[in-house]
């Protein structure tokens, strides 16, 4: 029998400043050459488990350990973090923090520099490592010229140069767009195949990880291991949802269509399942379920007409961009990084001034002469990371701040703050300091702080980034409730599923131009739109094609309707 390379035995860990252990009674053997996926929602302990493997625990984060852990036959606590890194190479979640070099070559060479390797040897090995991840042509580039995925590949090259036997990926997909995520999983798989190294992936995005084969899934929940098994087993059971993870959409679609999944093989990828009569069954289901609710034309709140903008003459960042958002409507603005999404939102909020074109509010008033402050009262802008918006110590102060600077009387501030906190489900915590809130609660707080100004339209930048499925759904359901009260939303995102499930319409921006503006299901089944915008075809439509369904688009629509019905059913 082969010796495990990583072995946890009844292992528990409690952080220094916490009263409860974060990892409880973990027993897990990982064998050389395996490709393991550790999955779980935030707070499940999966990141802590990763820290135990790469030595950040106990060397950087102290705490109490019980039970045993051995890595390549040794107890990590007896090594140094650097000695351990010769066995376990880590690719961190935050690509910008991991990329410390001023150029690609330097970042790859970072470990070699620290070992005081002679320059000639360093140059050879750096080039060889970059070749393995297909990034050699970028050797002289600076990090600012690279996409998140490319930075990650560079980090991987740096780790490969150390010859570590275990590659540990901590949330590798967190900051990547869909196409970037696909490439990342492909690269990880290629390296795994070529090198035979042990690969451990920590992630909560199910469908994206499963784009490539996985040996075993380790499901974590509340600090314990909930289940360990092959992907097909785990998918056929209902364990994922129980662990706060989102099963692949086509698996959900099969459930909605009433197809039994017991013992079904091949669920881990959107492919032909070989169940007899499956195609016809699904076609019948989609025919019934796909009837599209005719949406009443909403009264336009924001009307962007022919906007053109560039920082330098002759190089427009946005070209003739038009879009509308109606009252109570959720519109997704999709596009890759650098497509001009944030420039567009800065034009709408008035930070930037357009070279031509106009922005009308409530369908008629031209906003050109409005100050940023006045626009802020009509159109709220919420940043991706709530920590970057929160400035106050206490929750109620944070929400009331926007009113205070506008000279609203104290009594009225109190009343309006209380009202908004009620809406956002934060009222019970009104006397808490901000630091006591979870990430998801802070996200709501950042919305509350804008909502208190009573805007009619809100622009949300990547509203669900960094949240696991349960928090994601909770948050978006909350946004839907606000939309029902008549607030219009423009979601700036590269998350197609977010658009698919929550937006009425999608506008796709690529290289500064609008490529398409239509229903989400239709936009996302058109490769001529998805490819240039770094989106990808949804797994639903891939699954529909693989199983020979009559109309993939109709299948997607049926799924969306079933989701909405399902949600109403819960209420």
């Amino acid at each position, binding site marked *: 029998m082969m010796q495990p390379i990583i072995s946890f035995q009844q292992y528990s860990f409690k952080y220094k400043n916490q009263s409860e252990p974060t990892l409880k009674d973990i027993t897990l053997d990982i064998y050389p050459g395996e490709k393991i996926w550790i999955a779980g929602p935030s707070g499940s302990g999966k990141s802590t488990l990763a820290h135990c493997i*790469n*030595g*950040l625990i106990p*060397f*950087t984060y102290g705490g109490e350990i019980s039970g045993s852990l051995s890595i390549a036959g040794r107890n990590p606590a007896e090594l140094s*973090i*650097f000695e351990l*890194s010769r066995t376990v190479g*880590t690719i*961190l979640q935050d690509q*910008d923090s*991991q990329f*410390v*070099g*001023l*150029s690609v070559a*330097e970042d790859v*060479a*970072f*470990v070699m*520099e*620290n*070992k*005081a*390797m*002679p*320059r000639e040897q*360093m140059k050879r090995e*750096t080039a060889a490592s970059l070749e393995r991840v297909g990034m050699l042509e970028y050797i002289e580039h*600076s*990090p*600012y*010229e690279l996409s998140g995925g490319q930075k990650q590949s560079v980090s991987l090259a*740096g780790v490969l140069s*150390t010859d570590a036997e275990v590659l540990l990926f901590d949330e590798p997909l967190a900051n990547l767009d869909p196409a970037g995520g696909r490439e990342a999983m492909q690269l990880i798989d290629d390296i795994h195949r070529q090198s035979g190294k042990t690969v451990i992936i920590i992630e909560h995005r199910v469908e994206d990880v499963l784009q490539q084969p996985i040996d075993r899934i380790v499901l974590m929940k509340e600090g314990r291991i909930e289940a360990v098994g092959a992907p097909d087993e785990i998918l056929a059971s209902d364990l994922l949802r129980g662990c706060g993870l989102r099963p692949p959409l086509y698996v959900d679609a099969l459930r909605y269509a009433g197809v039994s999944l017991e013992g079904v093989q091949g669920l881990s990828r959107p492919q032909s399942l070989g169940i007899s009569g499956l195609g016809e069954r699904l076609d019948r289901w989609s025919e019934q379920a796909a009837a599209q609710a005719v949406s009443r034309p909403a009264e336009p709140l924001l009307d962007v007409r022919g906007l053109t903008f560039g920082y330098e003459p002759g190089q427009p960042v946005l070209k003739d961009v038009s879009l509308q958002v109606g009252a109570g409507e959720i519109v997704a603005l999709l596009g890759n990084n650098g497509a001009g999404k944030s420039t567009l939102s*800065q034009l709408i*909020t*008035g*930070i930037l001034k357009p070279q031509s074109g106009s922005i009308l509010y409530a369908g008629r008033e031209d906003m050109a002469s409005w*100050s*940023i*402050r006045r*626009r*802020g*009262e009509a159109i*709220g*802008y*919420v*940043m991706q*990371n709530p*920590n*970057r*918006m*929160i*400035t106050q110590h206490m929750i109620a102060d944070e929400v009331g*701040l*926007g009113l205070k*600077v506008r000279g609203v009387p104290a009594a009225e501030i109190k009343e309006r703050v209380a009202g908004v906190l009620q809406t956002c489900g934060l009222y019970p915590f009104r006397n808490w300091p901000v630091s006591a809130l979870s990430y998801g609660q802070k996200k709501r707080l950042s919305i509350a702080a*804008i909502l208190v*100004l009573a805007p009619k339209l809100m622009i949300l930048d990547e509203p669900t980034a960094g949240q696991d499925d349960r928090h994601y759904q909770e948050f978006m359901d909350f946004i839907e409730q606000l939309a029902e009260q008549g607030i219009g939303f423009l979601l700036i995102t590269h998350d197609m599923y977010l658009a698919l499930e929550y937006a009425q319409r999608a506008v796709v921006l690529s290289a500064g131009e609008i490529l398409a503006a239509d229903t989400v299901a239709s936009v996302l089944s058109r490769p001529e739109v998805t490819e240039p915008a770094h989106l990808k075809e949804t797994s639903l439509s891939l699954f529909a094609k693989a199983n020979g369904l009559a109309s993939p688009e109709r299948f997607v629509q049926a799924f969306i309707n079933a989701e909405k019905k399902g949600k109403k059913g819960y209420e």
Partner: protein
Amino acid sequence: MNRTGSLYVTGNSLFHRLDGAVKLVLFMAWTVMTYMFLDLRVFVLMLVVGIGLLATAGVPFKKMAFLFWLMIIFTVLNGIFILLITPTFGTRLTGTDTPLIPLGYNTINAETLFYVLTLSAKYLTLLPITILCIFTTQPSAFAGSLNRIGVPYKIAYAVSIALRYIPDLTEEFRSTLNSMQARGMGITKEDGSIAQRLRNLSAVVVPVLQSALHRIDSVTNAMELRGFGTEKRRTWYSGKEMEGLDWTLAVLGVLLLAVGIWLKVRVLKGFWYPF
């Protein structure tokens, strides 16, 4: 400044090829030379040499024009300021007084005017060498060069980290300011009195600081995991081995500085006033 936060312009001039540490030595020698004197002849000579070197570096003037303008505006304002506040300062240096322009409360004399001219030349003299260094040195070569001239590698690497994250943090600070401005808590005129705007600014500092501290954590982890600081010394990917030309110029720089010191002590002791 471009998106990468550096001003480096690619090229193959003498200065591009020169080792970064040698450039630092020349830069320091030049700076000390300038600091020592208050003599227009020295500055004119250095300026001619400096601008000559700058011309050989092939950096497009358009790219560095803003630095020249900044410096010219600064010296002009500084000069006017001196003339208005201490219109007879030159007398203290020369012992003579040649009244020239009446101001009402006092009179600007020729000595002060010439002093201001000398001082402006002194400031301008600092410019060419700095421009040469920043436009012809890749930022990544900077830290290694500091280390080579004797700065401990950990301090040198701190400089590299600063260069690496200035653009990221600038972008972050800007976007936080923008979102605050949309909430009505900006720092522009429309956001209220100066006191209010200062309060708004102090509010922005909190999330920016929080995020910087978070970044310290993650960058530290990234570097610890890759063995930073485990050895007594460290090598640098960027840079090259010192060649004959490098040594020659480094020695030349030190020699010229020595000549300068000799001149200062023996010949051009004080303020040069020819009239």
